[in-house]
């Protein structure tokens, strides 16, 4: 009798006398799992701390450096780890105009316009394809999916876009990548599974497609719409190669990623430019070039950080649906 009580409370054959000294069993731990050893727990904790630091530490020191003065960058000999001598000068310079400020606005505009276009096109197609047995349903799906596995490649795409007059045009950064078939399929699967019955009953009640889409499908699909809008927005925000391809020389009109790329390649081919290069001036104050570069990196990350927390909780659903049904 006594042993059964002990085993359900998780003691390892301890008597009630020293039960207080034994480690208490975590209530959430499944009953079949043995109490972990101290070494095992320590190793686990160690791995987790290292993984978190590997991601957080570079971001931290980049951020600190973007706020640092030339003097403290000189002391550190590069990236600053221990902050002293903080300044907002790099950001003041960016706000006051110039290449980076303009690039920031251009990037925001492309991302906003691109995401809007992509979402409208994707939602429409996903809804159209979500009804089993609608006209040409399977054929259209196949036509779309083939482009996931085979495409013409860079050079024919470049020539097609150029022939349409897209060279050096902002639409060339948006329209060729406006439809992601993967996103479309994820969304279609969500529409087809989640809202199917409600849609049917609404149709019986005589509602048209537009009304169903606006009043039923969209409100019911907020999670998947949020995730896919994030995927699209991040795609536009982060894209770099299409800038190199379609507007390589027009540096005045470059989005942010291209400006950042130029800073990096300069940094990689001239290793010491971080500490000794000639910086830009704000009034008569010299801005540390490295802190300006790091401010650009921070600017590319901040919008992602702002949106991320709100969408993050839906990832599992979005990713999984895609992985299973895609």
């Amino acid at each position, binding site marked *: 009798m006594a042993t059964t009580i002990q085993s359900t409370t998780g003691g390892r054959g301890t008597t009630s006398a020293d039960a207080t000294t034994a480690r208490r069993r975590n209530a959430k731990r499944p009953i079949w799992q043995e109490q972990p050893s101290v070494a095992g727990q320590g190793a686990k904790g160690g791995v987790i701390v290292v*993984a978190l630091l590997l991601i957080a530490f570079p971001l931290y020191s980049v951020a600190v450096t973007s706020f640092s003065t030339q003097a403290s960058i000189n002391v550190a000999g590069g990236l600053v780890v221990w902050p002293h001598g903080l300044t907002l000068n790099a950001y003041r310079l960016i706000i006051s105009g110039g290449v980076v400020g303009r690039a920031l606005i251009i990037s925001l505009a492309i991302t906003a316009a691109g995401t809007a276009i992509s979402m409208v096109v994707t939602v429409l197609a996903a809804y159209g394809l979500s009804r089993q047995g609608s006209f040409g349903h399977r054929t259209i799906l196949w036509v779309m999916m083939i482009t996931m596995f085979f495409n013409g490649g860079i050079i024919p795409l470049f020539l097609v876009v150029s022939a349409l007059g897209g060279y050096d045009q902002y639409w060339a950064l948006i329209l060729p990548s406006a439809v992601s078939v993967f996103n479309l399929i994820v969304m279609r699967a969500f529409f087809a599974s989640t809202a199917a019955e409600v849609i049917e009953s609404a149709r019986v009640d005589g509602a048209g497609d537009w009304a169903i889409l606006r009043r039923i499908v969209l409100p019911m699909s907020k999670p998947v719409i949020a995730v896919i809008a994030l995927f699209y927005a991040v795609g536009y925000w982060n894209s770099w190669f299409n800038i190199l391809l379609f507007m390589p020389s027009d540096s005045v009109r470059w989005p942010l990623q291209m400006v950042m790329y130029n800073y990096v390649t300069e940094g990689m081919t001239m290793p010491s430019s971080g500490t000794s290069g000639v910086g830009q001036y704000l009034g008569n104050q010299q801005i540390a070039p490295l802190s300006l570069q790091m401010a650009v990196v921070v600017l590319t990350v901040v919008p*992602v950080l702002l949106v991320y927390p709100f969408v993050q909780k839906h990832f599992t659903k979005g990713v999984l649906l895609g*992985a299973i049904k895609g």
Partner: protein
Amino acid sequence: MCLPALVLLLVFGYAPMLGLVMAFQDYDLYDGFLHSPWVGFANFQQLFADPGFWHAFTNTLVLFSVQLVLFFPVPIALAILLDSLLSRRLRSLIQSVVTLPHFFSMVMVVTIFNEMFGGSGLLDTFLRSHGVKNPADIMTDPSTFKFLVSGQLIWKEAGWSMIVFLAALAAISPSLYEAAAVDGAGWWSRLRHITLPGLKPITILLLILQLGYALTFGFEQMLIQLPAVGPGAGQVITTFSYENGIVNGDFSYGAAAGLFLGVTSVILILAANKVAHLFGEAGLYRK
């Protein structure tokens, strides 16, 4: 309702596919697809006789294999580790941090690595201040480039790939573990006989998807770092195609390399699916 999407895919997906006929032409910008002279397989003959192409081909296979071997176990291990945590709070905190870099651009990731490991990066400064005379510049060293790009891939994508495995782990029935524990199985044999077999289908599916991208993976990553590391280590078929086609303006030659890539990739996907069917898995599509 599918019309806008279809139009975009036809213009920017299928029109370039038709444009691939230029691989069999001596394409000239002024003559276009319709009037450029046909040359048959001349571009491909030139391609297969070009040592630069075979070098890029070998590089592609080496970089892909090293990345696959180093990268693939990491998300699985991360998922198993995270799944074993009892605190939900801690679990979701770690998950949000490790998935974050997936949303950074490749340019940004390379920048971060350059600031950490480059010629005037943190590691370099640290080593110099501790008496190391000439620390290796990891960012420009061709011999370690494959490990560098694997490290970048792990930093950026391991957390994201983990999510799928986490979901697969959550789908394994706890009663299996319970029964095994009653039969006296320790955590190691539970891992080997329940957890890993439970992850097998999704692992095979993801491996197939990876194989499909074997020849086209990492294009931006390589292109960004080509100037620093040199074509010896960093030139892959995609960058080869881009350099010849766009940078040097030899459109037909670049398109020929691109067509070779596309066709080989499709064959790879179909072959990988066959293998998955042989193993009794569903794969990307069913038989």
